[in-house]
């Protein structure tokens, strides 16, 4: 290799504008490549479409729902327990409210719960996992991981039930209770990854060069944990939605008359099997949301997986 000639060849051959162009082009290329990998599997694209549709429907529920008033305190006993028809697409419940409209509004609290719980849980969980993993076999590791184990020993649903029955049963308290029990899963996940990554030579190179701990944690180790974290998040959001529905099913989550998928199933269960639509359609809504997020998670995993091979 002729170092001397190649150096004169490349000196000042690029202007700042050209470098910026290069950066933009490579960023576009990167996005294109990721989309290609994600979209290779049509199932993932379907998951993405379902999730986007659900989010849009929930966000614009007041405009999309045929009977927005039915989400509140509303009764119409003349039209109670009507089967699905052109006027009421998914039928009406025991006091005459349109089930389709209530599902759209019910999805709001489900999604809200998923998003709020995850945004409360992921940052501290990941940070603790990074710390414990990087300081593997030190007191920091022991302290963080033993506390994590204690929290992992308590089933989130049971604690949520306990909290909700002691405090006022409402959406916010059940979100707090679930969050309190959920962060250790992220700590465990990131801990496992970080203990392996800390021995990689790129981490050692940063250490012997004298890079700060913050640099090593957030710029060297963390970027390599993003894909499992995202995959877990998309599956967890589905789990949180299920737990939220369970809580409202037993009456400890969202309080009536505000609609929630869980309470709708609980109310409708009394009218099974004759007026099946009251319970079955909210249940199907949960299935669709959970499936959508799970498929999206698979797609995210695929997008990152082939990149590392």
């Amino acid at each position, binding site marked *: *290799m*002729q*170092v*001397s000639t*190649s*150096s004169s060849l*490349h*000196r000042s*051959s*690029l202007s700042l504008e050209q*470098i910026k162009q*290069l*950066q933009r082009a*490579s*960023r576009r290329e990167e996005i294109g490549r990721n989309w290609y990998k994600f979209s290779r599997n049509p199932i993932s694209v379907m998951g993405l479409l379902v999730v986007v549709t659900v989010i849009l429907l929930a966000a614009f529920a007041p405009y999309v729902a045929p009977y927005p008033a039915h989400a509140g305190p509303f009764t119409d006993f003349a039209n109670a327990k009507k089967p699905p028809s052109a006027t009421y697409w998914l039928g009406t419940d025991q006091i005459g409210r349109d089930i389709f409209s209530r599902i759209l509004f019910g999805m709001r609290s489900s999604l809200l719960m998923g998003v709020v719980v995850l945004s409360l849980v992921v940052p501290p969980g990941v940070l603790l996992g990074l710390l414990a993993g990087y300081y593997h076999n030190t007191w920091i590791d022991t302290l963080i991981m033993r506390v994590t184990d204690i929290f992992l020993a308590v089933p989130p649903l049971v604690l949520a039930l306990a909290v909700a029955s002691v405090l006022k049963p409402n959406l916010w308290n059940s979100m707090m209770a679930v969050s309190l029990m959920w962060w250790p899963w992220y700590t465990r996940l990131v801990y496992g990854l970080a203990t392996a990554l800390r021995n*990689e*030579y*790129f981490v*050692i*190179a*940063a*250490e*012997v*060069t*004298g*890079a*700060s701990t913050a*640099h090593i944690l957030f*710029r*060297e180790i963390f*970027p*390599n944990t*993003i894909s499992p974290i995202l995959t877990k998040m998309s599956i967890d959001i589905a789990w949180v939605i299920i737990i939220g529905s369970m809580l409202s099913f037993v009456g400890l989550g969202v309080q009536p008359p505000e609609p929630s998928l869980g309470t709708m199933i609980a109310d409708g269960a009394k009218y099974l099997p004759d007026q099946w639509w009251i319970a079955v359609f909210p249940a199907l809504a949960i299935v669709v949301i959970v499936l959508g997020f799970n498929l999206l998670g698979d797609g995210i995993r695929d997008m990152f997986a082939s*990149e*590392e091979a």
Partner: protein
Amino acid sequence: MSQPILSVQHLKKYFVVGQTGMLGKRQPITVKAVDGVSFDVFSGETLGLVGESGSGKSTVAYTVVGMYKPTAGKIRFMNTEIGTNDKRPKELQKAIQIVFQDPGSSLNPRQNIKQILEMPLRVHRKDRNRLEMVIYLLEIVGLPPEAMYKYPRMLSGGEKQIIGIARALATNPSLVILDEPTSALDVSVQAKTINLLLELQKQFNLSYLFITHDLSLMRNVASRVAIMYLGKICEIANTADFFRNPLHPYTQMLLSSIPVVSEEEEALRPTKVISRGEIPSPVNIPKGCSFHTRCPFVMPHCSEVDPEFTDMGNGHSVRCHLYPQGG
């Protein structure tokens, strides 16, 4: 010769790998990875540290660069004691850099080349324009600036290793430890990488501690060669001397096992010493001279007494009972 830039004295590095014995009589099992190694590296030279897998050569490298703390012994860098348990000062981290063996693991797969090369600049060259420095670094290793926004997975093994070299040079070091920098590469790429390393050495007056198991490579690269066996150096000499007149039976065994293609090379070979046995486990190092289990010239006291170094003149030292001290 001038003052050594790096001077390693009786360096020992033991690792505790487990315990034996019952309660109360517990004994730690230690691996004596490096067991009393001394050598100097002079300014601008390349010291080749050669040994089989498990001879402790990489442990020496990692201890010098500060990844491991030495169990005993001294490491002096430009007359400063550096083998202590304290955190190394910035100046030192800047002056001693390392290039790793595995180019795949030595670059962060989630960072582009620009981010990778910026890491040392962030720590040590806050005064410089980082973008300009990254382009300059790519330039001195012969890569186009277009490589900046590429990710390691888009590069070949050789290119990755070149980025590893550029990262090591980013702090403007005076000593670079090369831990088998070419052993993971194709032969054609190996030659290119070695030439680049030699060019850079001249250009920036770098001193290299070149760790390798490839003895034949050292003939063209090293100024001096040291042979390691089971955590100890058994022979150290100037490269010309070393290949012309190998003294230690282990060295003779290694040199005679290098495959040759031409008659010229055949003529350079020492008397054929058949290679036999394998390197013993560093947990159970043989008593006396650690090589006596494989030595063709083994004598009765070899299994009892560990030999000392004998100075054969001209910087050529050998640690073997065949060359008694003062004899």
